[in-house]
């Protein structure tokens, strides 16, 4: 940047790292603020953080690499089920424990099921999801935009349905079907206060800091990826695949890396979600969730990391706060005007209507999102400019 003081000087550092640094500090202090102000927002904030991770993961596929993935919820489900399989009493025929935070024996008996430490499972979930990212991505390599989206949609439907029907695969109960897997272990850190040695439901702070660290790692990795050779390759493939291939970019590995990395973050988010919620049901991993995450990416700004974070916070804020609040207001108005229609309205049920309208409106009015990625903005607007240029030459 010309005209500014030297790169390492305090002023430049402040300008570059001031806002993110301030936000990170705020995030670390949040439990304190939450406790002091009595706002009791821990649970929603943790869920929002999970969705921020999911949105950042999808941002790699849709935003960076330009591949419309409509089945992202599959990776979310896979991560959650990895934790469900290896850190619960599900496989109660065996008894295996590895570095788990749970005591190996309760009342003299071995604990049934497989119990592996959550931190190890986190890595396993990420790797497993990445593997499936490659498996799902591989068939789509030759496909164009519409067909690619449909194939990913197909996988996004098949995998959760497989979990739904998995209680009778040739007689073996793999996924417990519609009942889902309950009683998933909580993580633990072998030192520190008791609520940190085994995360519980009373003190949400350890959960919060875990997800915060995960989100920060995700953001850091995303920024480094975006500015790396791989990130540039993604940008090239997104803009013009033929030209990119002509320039020596290996489009196959580039796209597969996008799927794998995006899936990894989806899997990590799923693993955390599984252990946080303690019971997972296949019906909660529906196509609607895929669209919700897509909405966050679109609203915030495809390819823009800050934008996607904002999108996730906004949409979950609508889900958790705005819609229930509007519900109360509408009920109040209904009671005041004595209108049963308004008093009994159930506004939060229509959140997907709002998201649908949002998607259409964003695409018509501001496809690059709230905080746009400059590159994407150029790409999305240039189509319109081409149009007007040809108008001029024709006239």
């Amino acid at each position, binding site marked *: 940047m010309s005209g500014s003081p030297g790169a390492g000087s305090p002023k430049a550092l402040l300008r570059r790292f001031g806002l993110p640094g301030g936000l990170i500090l705020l995030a670390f202090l949040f439990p304190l603020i939450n406790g002091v102000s009595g706002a009791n927002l821990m649970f929603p904030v943790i869920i929002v953080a999970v969705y921020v991770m999911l949105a950042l993961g999808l941002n790699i596929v849709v935003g960076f690499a*330009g591949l*419309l993935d*409509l089945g992202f919820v599959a990776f979310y489900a896979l991560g959650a089920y990895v934790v469900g399989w290896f850190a619960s009493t599900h496989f109660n025929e065996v008894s295996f424990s590895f570095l788990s935070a749970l005591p190996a024996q309760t009342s003299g008996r071995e604990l049934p099921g497989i119990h592996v430490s959550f931190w190890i499972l986190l890595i396993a979930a990420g790797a497993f999801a990445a593997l499936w990212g490659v498996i799902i991505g591989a*068939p*789509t390599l*030759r*496909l*164009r*935009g*519409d*067909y690619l*989206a*449909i*194939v990913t*949609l*197909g*996988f996004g*439907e*098949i995998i959760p*349905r*497989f979990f*739904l*029907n998995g209680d009778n695969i040739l007689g073996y109960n793999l996924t417990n079907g519609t009942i889902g897997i309950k009683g998933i272990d909580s993580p633990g850190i072998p030192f520190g206060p008791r609520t940190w040695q085994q995360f519980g439901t009373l003190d949400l702070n350890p959960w919060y800091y875990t997800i915060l660290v995960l989100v920060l790692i995700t953001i850091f990795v995303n920024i480094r990826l975006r500015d790396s050779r791989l990130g540039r390759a993604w940008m090239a493939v997104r803009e013009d695949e033929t030209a990119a291939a002509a320039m020596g970019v290996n489009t196959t590995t580039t796209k597969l890396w996008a799927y794998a990395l995006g899936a990894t973050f989806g899997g990590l988010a799923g693993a955390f979600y599984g252990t946080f919620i303690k019971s997972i049901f296949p019906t909660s991993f529906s*196509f609607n969730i895929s*669209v919700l995450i*897509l909405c966050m990416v*679109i609203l915030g700004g495809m390819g823009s990391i800050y934008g996607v974070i904002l999108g996730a916070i906004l949409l979950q804020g609508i889900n958790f706060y705005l819609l229930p609040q509007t519900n109360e207001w509408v009920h109040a108005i209904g009671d005041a005007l004595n209108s049963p229609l308004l008093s009994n309205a159930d506004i939060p*049920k*229509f959140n*997907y*209507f709002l*998201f*649908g*309208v*949002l*998607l*259409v409106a964003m*695409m*018509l009015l501001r*496809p690059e999102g709230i905080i746009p990625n400059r590159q994407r903005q150029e*790409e*999305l607007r240039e*189509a*319109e400019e*081409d*149009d007007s240029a040809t108008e001029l030459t024709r006239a």
Partner: protein
Amino acid sequence: MATTQEAKPKGAAMIDGVKSSSWQSRLAAAIVAALVVLLLVQAVKDPGQFVSQLLIGITNGAIIALIALGYTLVYGIVELINFAHGDNFMIGSFVGVTVLSGTFLGLGFFAPIDSGSGTGIRIVGVLLALVVAMLACGLINVGIERVAYKPLRNSPRLAVLITAIGMSFILQNVGLVWKGSFQIPFPSLISNGNALAGITDAVAYRWKDLFVVLVTIPLLLGLSYFIRSTRQGKAMRAVAQDKEAAAMMGINVNRTISVAFLLGGILAGASGVMFGLFNGTTVFDLGVRQGLFAFTAAVLGGIGNLAGAVVGGVLIGVIGSMTDQYVGVRWTDIVIFTVLILVLVFRPRGLLGDRSAVQGGGGE
């Protein structure tokens, strides 16, 4: 496809085709042959059940074929997957059930038509439901095109696809607001009885199946006549082939596209009412599943190809009913979605692709 080769005799061309086929197509052919053999074994074991499942499959397939025609018409002309089409089909069934109930917006127009009404009233009711639903869905489709797709005609494909998903959600939620989240029963207007009762006892062919055929075939014939012989039909074929050239020939491209959407909507509406009368129930998220099935059918037959949509529809219907019976109802979805993925990845042009009444390509 213009080639400078001499036209080979068909037999020799086919043999050449088989010889030069890749190992993938041979593997696919072998798997399909094995599955057909398995099915035939079941057919021999219990012919009555096999035939009745086949009939159910064909009837369901006819309903799916009508929806698939909507997808294929639109894709042939504007190369866009109208994601909201399945949900339009659902709205069609909702309109049908509303017409049959006789009340709309709190105003009672006539007494509800249900299984207690006389035959004459039932026929009138069914026809009325069909006509109103066809009109409503046609107009909805045209509306969606005007509002959501037309402004984005020159935008990147990503933008239009996302808009289509948004419209799909909007329609679903209209259904949710209108009729709630539970299954909505359709009045049972067509009997389950055997239409061939007096004639033969070997095969049970229900009035319901006959009804679907009686509605589908005229619609198909009408559509085929429209595309083949009318000026608008010719205009549609022209626009599908080359939009700019068609415009230069004086064809109003915008109106032609709207007509394509209108036709697709009409078919979806008819299909919705038929689905409701045939299956006895409808629900707000019906369109997602049936829409995907129909899209699978359209791609299987060859997107952009009208005959392909019908063939694909019947095939998917039969695959669905066979899977229901011989594998298990809960695996049907997975099987059909797998078919979708396999077709899109290994044979994007489908079975009948590359020949078309309404031309247009998919994939490459």
